[in-house]
């Protein structure tokens, strides 16, 4: 079952989006923290000019909690349970935001492409969690071999979280593509050496 985790509320760049995770009452199935964890692959349906069925594929690389009450040191008039009844709008202003980097897209024919998509997502577009089979599809090249062409783009983001994100992606793919473990191990070791051993020396 495809789980919708939230909606696009903002973008920082052409590939860097901010998604607000659905809270209670916003979706039929409330997404669980595991559904929008660090390194989760998501898809964003493209609307407007894009061909029908075309969607972006991205990965969650950051999480941000919105709390308008932070820094307000005044007394709270009512406990949280009563807030839901008396001021539900106030609760809606607290939100969990996740950062998503678009790594590619799946065209209307269902064919995966990795790289910078031509068309951007629009605000309020729902974001779905990608299932394992879709994840496998997205990473498969022409001869069914594993592709990770988005790695240079990810590393180019200069985010301190990206190396750990990549290690997590590689570990997950090694479980999904057991036949590619040796290739993935080379890449993992290289990433780990550059990000774990060298900086610590």
């Amino acid at each position, binding site marked *: 079952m495809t789980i919708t985790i939230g909606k696009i509320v903002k973008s920082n760049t052409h590939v860097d989006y901010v998604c607000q995770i659905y809270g209670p009452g916003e979706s039929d199935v409330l997404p669980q923290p595991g559904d929008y964890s660090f390194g989760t692959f998501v898809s964003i349906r493209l609307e407007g000019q894009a061909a029908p069925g075309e969607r972006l594929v991205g990965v969650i690389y950051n999480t941000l909690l919105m709390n308008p009450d932070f820094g307000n040191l005044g007394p709270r008039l009512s406990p949280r349970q009563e807030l839901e009844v008396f001021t539900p709008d106030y609760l809606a202003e607290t939100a969990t935001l996740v950062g998503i980097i678009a790594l590619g897209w799946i065209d209307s024919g269902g064919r995966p492409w990795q790289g910078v998509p031509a068309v951007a997502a629009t605000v309020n577009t729902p974001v779905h969690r990608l299932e394992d089979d879709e994840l496998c599809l997205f990473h498969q090249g022409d001869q069914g071999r594993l592709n990770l062409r988005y790695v240079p783009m990810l590393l180019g983001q200069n985010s301190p979280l990206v190396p750990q994100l990549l290690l997590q992606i590689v570990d997950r793919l090694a479980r999904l593509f057991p036949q590619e473990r040796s290739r993935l*191990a080379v890449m*993992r*070791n290289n990433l*780990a*050496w550059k990000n*774990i*051993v060298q900086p610590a*020396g």
Partner: protein
Amino acid sequence: MNQPVAIEPVCVGTVKGPGETPHEFTFIAPDPDRRVKHGEFVYYLTQVDGQERRILGRVTGRESVRLFPDSFMADPSVPPAQIAALLGYDSDASELFEITVAVLGYHDSQMGEFINPRVPPAGGSPVYIADDAWLAQILSKRQRGEIGSAHLGSLLSRAPDAVPVALDVRGFTSTHLAIIASTGSGKSYLAGVLLEELMMPYNRASVLIVDPHGEYNTLQEMQNLPAFREGNYKPRVRIFQPDAVRVRIDTLTLPDLRYLLPNLSEKMQYQLSRAYRFAQRSFKGGYTLEQLLYAVRQTSDNKKGEDEAGFDDEDDPTTGGLVWRLNSVLGNSRIFNDFENLELDELCAPGLCTVIQLNEVDQREQQVIVATLLRRIYQARIDTTKKKVGRGDKNYIPFPVFCLLEEAHHYAPASADAVSTDVLKQILSEGRKFGVSIGLISQRPGKLDSDVLSQCMTQCIMRITNPIDQNRIAESVESVGRDLLRELPSLSKGQVIVSGASVNTPVLLRVRQRLTRHGGESIDAPAEWHAWFERDGAAARQDTALPAARRVQREEDGDILFA
């Protein structure tokens, strides 16, 4: 040519790109098993003339491209891998090496040599370690046990006996051989192995050994070992002790005489040359010392009449001095003789290993003995080849002869003038045509004449630590690569670099076990001292012990009468 295909090629690395020189390339290898050693043989596959070939190369350098940071090694008791694991790097793949390979090429069995494709391998090509069977086939020009092969040992980078290497006997018997090593590195042992191989049924060589230390006695064991027998063949080993070595006086040339006689004045030299020519002319069948002295007197400027001549009353000081010197050197020598000589037919025969022991012989005499022997053998081979002598003649040698000289720097010194140098040089440069080949053994290549060393086209080089000797080898021996010469100080006893005409490519060998005992063992001084106490010490103590108190009778004045 059908190349044997390896059953399971073991991939050890990936080509990075061309190296510094046109015949080098580099590859990257994790090498967790430490298989890619210095001198190891690896290959890559490429298409040459439409055929897939295995291009062999030798590892010449190894540099690390990925290392643990130095700070991980701050505590010697904590391995850096554990620090890395602590941080989350728990893979074993912590090391990467950049290996430099000198390309030898593919082996063409028809040409019998390696042909370099002259194109570096494509980047990213896999590099395999050469398998033992293939190496054994292509490194040696002859296979072990084949006619004309000399199995010296096995490749050092592999398990003992995994890749046997055999020298091509034809290679070094036509273009000479040098064994060079510092003392105690095993050069006599290696020479023993080589001699064993030469006397094997598949070689049956005619070998003459000049042995100034008396180390080759043990070769006599070959006569009784079954490994050396085949059908009616068994090798013979003749050992000439210093007492038995004879050089007939009329075989000495004028330079020999000049070299032997001390402090000759210009006038004496002039008279000696006249006397020599006189003796040559007058005594066609050979002459004795007396006849040579007669010739000296006859050629004197102040010649006396026949009846006036005498030994003790020379008027002419030149004649007197020359006669005195000839008498002193030749007359009192046990080596130089009027009639006896080492006959060539006694020294040389196929299946015969002759050892001329020259220990206790004066060095100048040694040089003259070697010079005369080599000259006679060489002349005999020339005469035999040109059919000037025939069967039954003592100088008839209808087969090639291999002469091995221990301590060769005595016979062709670099800085001094020895009488044997010229004949050695002549044989080294021209002996190939007449089937006389030389094997030189020396511990001081720096003291060996550089022309002589460079004429030896097969070289067996063992551990050498002296930089002067290392440089001399680098100058004189072209076939050994710089990378192998860098190994010289680190070689252990019994490890040898063999290069030149008798092998397809320079190889690093572990010398095989000798079948006969080694005669050149070092003396174990502490053991000998201990043995002396057990064996002779008691007797010696008895001899030197003071007598028990005896009754001493004294005379009245106190002198001892007897005790």
